[in-house]
Structures are given as C-alpha cells and as structure tokens.
C-alpha cells in the first residue's frame, strides 16, 4: 500500500521535502501510520504532538484517527495557514 505525505510551510522547510511516498505491506489506520512514522524519524514525534498542525486525508480533515487508509491515499500535514 502506497501513501503519499505532503508537507507545507515550516514542516516542509524543516523536513526539506514537499512530499514523500511511503510503502506499507499491512492494512493500517491513520493512528498506525503515525506510530510507523515516529519510529522511522523522531521528527514526526514533534509534528504529531503539535496541536496546531491539522491532518488531511484526500482533502478531508481527519477527525477520527482510526480511519482506515487505502492504497494511493494522500495525507497532508498543515501548519496554521497564513494566506490573504
């Protein structure tokens, strides 16, 4: 199962890439994904503890961390917006 993660604003600057493709063999929820990412890179620990960052799955805000992920899903990590 391939999941794309998109990074924006200071998260993108800090991780030095705009997106990343992860492959997982098992079925998983967003909660599982968070734990996998924290294991891969301690940077994600900071991200997931930051209450100001919002998470979107295929352009919809994630409100339940137990949501199942599917092959081809796009997850985005959004710091507080500053347009306008």
């Amino acid at each position, binding site marked *: 199962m391939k999941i794309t993660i998109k990074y*924006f604003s200071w998260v993108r600057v800090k991780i030095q890439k705009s997106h990343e493709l992860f492959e997982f063999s098992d079925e998983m929820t967003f909660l599982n994904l968070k734990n996998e990412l924290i294991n891969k890179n301690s940077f994600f620990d900071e991200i997931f503890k930051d209450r100001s960052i919002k998470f979107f799955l295929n352009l919809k805000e994630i409100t339940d961390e137990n949501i199942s992920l599917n092959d081809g899903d796009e997850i985005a990590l959004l710091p507080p*917006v*500053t*347009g*306008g």
Partner: protein
Amino acid sequence: MIKITKEDFNLEEEFKKIHSKKNGAYSFFLGTVRQDIDDNINGIFLECYEDLACNQLNKIKKDSTQKWNLSDCTIIHRIGDLKISEKIVLVITAAPHRSDCIEACEYIIDTLKANVALWKFHIKGKEKEPVNQKKKDLDKYLSWSQVIS
C-alpha cells in the same frame, strides 16, 4: 470565480467579469505586499496546497452567497514570489444592496486568512522565513461563527 494564480490581475477587468445590471453594489477587498517598517523584507513567497485551497475557497463562496444572498463573488489569490506592493488577494462581492456585499466581503477575507491552505513566507535576502499566524486573524475569523451558523 475562484482563481489561484501566479499572474497579476486588473481590478477593472475583474469587475467587468462580475458586473451585472441586477446588482447595485460591489464590495472589494484587495491585499498587497506591505513594506513593513520594523521588519525589512524584499518580498513574500506564497505556498499553496492548491487542490485543498480550491475546495476551501469554493465552500467559502457557497456559504457566503447563501448567507448574504450575493449575486456573485470573485476570489483571486496569487501564489509564488511577490515583490513589495504587488497584489496578493482580491475579493469582490456583488449584490442588489450594499450591506450584504460589504459584510460578505469581510467574512470572505477573514475566513480565507484563517482557513485556506495558503502559507506566507517573508523573503529576506536569500532566506524565506515562514510567517506565523496572527492571533487577531484567528480571533476575527472565530467572531463570525455566530453570524454564519
């Protein structure tokens, strides 16, 4: 019309696109890159999650059109590198009467600032520093929750 673009826009041309004899009132908000006296910048960079931002702008347009009975609404937001004094964002609301379009225009820019996937960076020399969200922008947006719900 909702547009996210690198291109500049012309106010008269954008007005002509929304202009209709059924409207008597148009309210515009235009944001530009300000030369901050305290904080010397060469310009700004605007990052956008375009697919999401388009959805969010369309929702803002739909909500405000219903709430204030607008005839039409234009939202244009620039992205990429912008120099000092360049245009960043334009909101135009059109309605038969003025109070509707004035209030809706303010709602749209307040909501856009707090709720659309756009991020501003200050360009200082070769550095691009992410701009922090202002508490007053968030508070202003939240103040609409009683009006719109």
